[in-house]
């Protein structure tokens, strides 16, 4: 088992639970959905699993070993996240090229220009896009760039938090296709958060249904 969460609990204030004793597991190469309305705790769960937020109680195991917030070293590279709003995932004053190169520096991954260019071409981005700032790129282009950026780190798990909900139909289909193709080649596990049943069915093989901070149902989906 790649990732196993047991009894994850998160409170933001003294009040009620945002997430209450949530269990979840995920195998290598598997695509698991987390489905729920806004406010159900989807994004909080994603942030706990990505090691971005500390839990109040509960444990998180990665390949059987207990891991804790904040993730360090190798784990920080192997678990990557893609967000809902692509324009907020890039520094507005940096060129696209600067943004895409940053993780190589942070994680000390050797950089290969030819491979970099090829990876970008696979998501439909070329030399002319690289000098532009995020303001001069469309939402679809930025989300494809965000995918290329996390994929360049060869992650074992991609946490995708509503990655297509802000995109138009054509860009949405392109992003879903890129995700399917990449997984076929690299067997990366996906944790796919969505409120859209059609998108969930299109990608996921199994899904957790979240309501008011608790998993109310776990179900196989025909993908």
């Amino acid at each position, binding site marked *: 088992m790649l990732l196993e969460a047991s009894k994850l609990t998160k409170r933001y204030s003294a009040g009620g639970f945002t997430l209450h004793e949530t269990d979840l597991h995920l195998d290598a190469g598997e695509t698991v959905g987390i489905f729920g309305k806004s406010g159900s705790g989807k994004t909080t769960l994603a942030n706990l699993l990505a090691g971005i937020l500390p839990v109040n109680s509960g444990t998180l195991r990665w390949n059987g070993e207990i891991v804790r917030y904040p993730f360090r070293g190798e784990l920080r590279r192997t678990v990557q996240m893609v967000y809902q709003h692509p324009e907020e995932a890039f520094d507005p004053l940096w060129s696209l090229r600067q943004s895409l190169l940053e993780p190589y520096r942070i994680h000390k991954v050797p950089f290969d220009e030819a491979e970099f260019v090829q990876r970008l071409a696979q998501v*439909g981005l*070329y030399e*002319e896009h690289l000098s532009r700032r995020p303001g001069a790129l*469309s939402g*679809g*282009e930025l989300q494809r760039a965000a995918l290329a950026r996390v994929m360049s780190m060869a992650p074992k798990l991609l946490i995708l938090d509503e990655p297509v*909900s*802000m995109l*138009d*139909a*054509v*860009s*949405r*289909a*392109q992003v*879903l*296709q890129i995700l399917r193709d990449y997984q076929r080649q690299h067997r990366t596990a996906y944790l796919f958060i969505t409120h*859209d049943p*059609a*998108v969930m069915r*299109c990608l996921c093989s199994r899904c957790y249904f979240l309501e008011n901070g608790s998993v109310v149902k776990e179900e196989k989906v025909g993908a």
Partner: protein
Amino acid sequence: MLKLESVSVSFPTAGGVIQPVDKVSLEVEKGGRHVLIGETGSGKSVLLTSLLGLSGGEITGHIFWKNRELAGLPETEYAKIRGREIAYIPQNGAGSLNPLMKIGRQIGEPLQVHRGASRKEALAAAVEALRELDFQSPEYWARQYPHRLSGGMRQRVLVAMGTIAGGELLLADEPTKGLDTDRREEVARRFRQFPGTALLCVTHDLEFARAVGERISVLYAGQIVETAPAAAFFDAPLHPYAKSMIRSLPEHGFQSAKGFAPSHRDYGGLGCRFAERCPEAGDACGKSPPLLQFGERQVRCWYAAGSE
């Protein structure tokens, strides 16, 4: 009422002249609603701003507004038409509002400037417009400055502002950008509400286009590839690119066409601009197809007759 004849727009750049809009012809009738669908980079925003004389590009061809040529019209003449006869809803919600003016005042301003309304009348109409666009406690929001509003709220404020003076033609650039499904339906409803106002809207939101449009044109790489009545179009588009757009919808399983749309810089070549991504391409595609007439529809594809 609005008639475009072979309109091209070009810009000089360091890398040579680019032409993001290539020989576009279309007509919007009085009270009609025409939606132009296209991806980013298809030239749709340049086309809209060119109609208002704001794109800064060089325009060839003819733009007729009520039988008067707009292409090359002096700025002083344009200023009398813009806002009064032709209203415009820009794309960028945050950058298009005055940060130092309260929402209600901004929405009502066109009524004061173009219709001679008093400040009080304009404000009352603005509150009403906010209410129709589903703002809870519109009186409260009318007194706020733009920074208090979310992106979706700002977008709806622009819609209210563009529709309040009831001009004869409304040009809207991606009016649903960043809105969720429920909000998009409200915008669609608002657009259908003005029988006297014609609409020319550019969008990449297919669901919105279906909800609003009476006629649909699809723009690909600066050219119109298909124009058709909305019902017939969504029922069965004829151009392969338009077909691929419809196949990307959820009910068709989010299928994606091969490759990605080209950018302004490499539209070139003599053949059909969609050919290299097209599953139906054949020998004829090496030569650029004209817009061919099929009953009420026009399609830029040599093979469209066979797919009817």
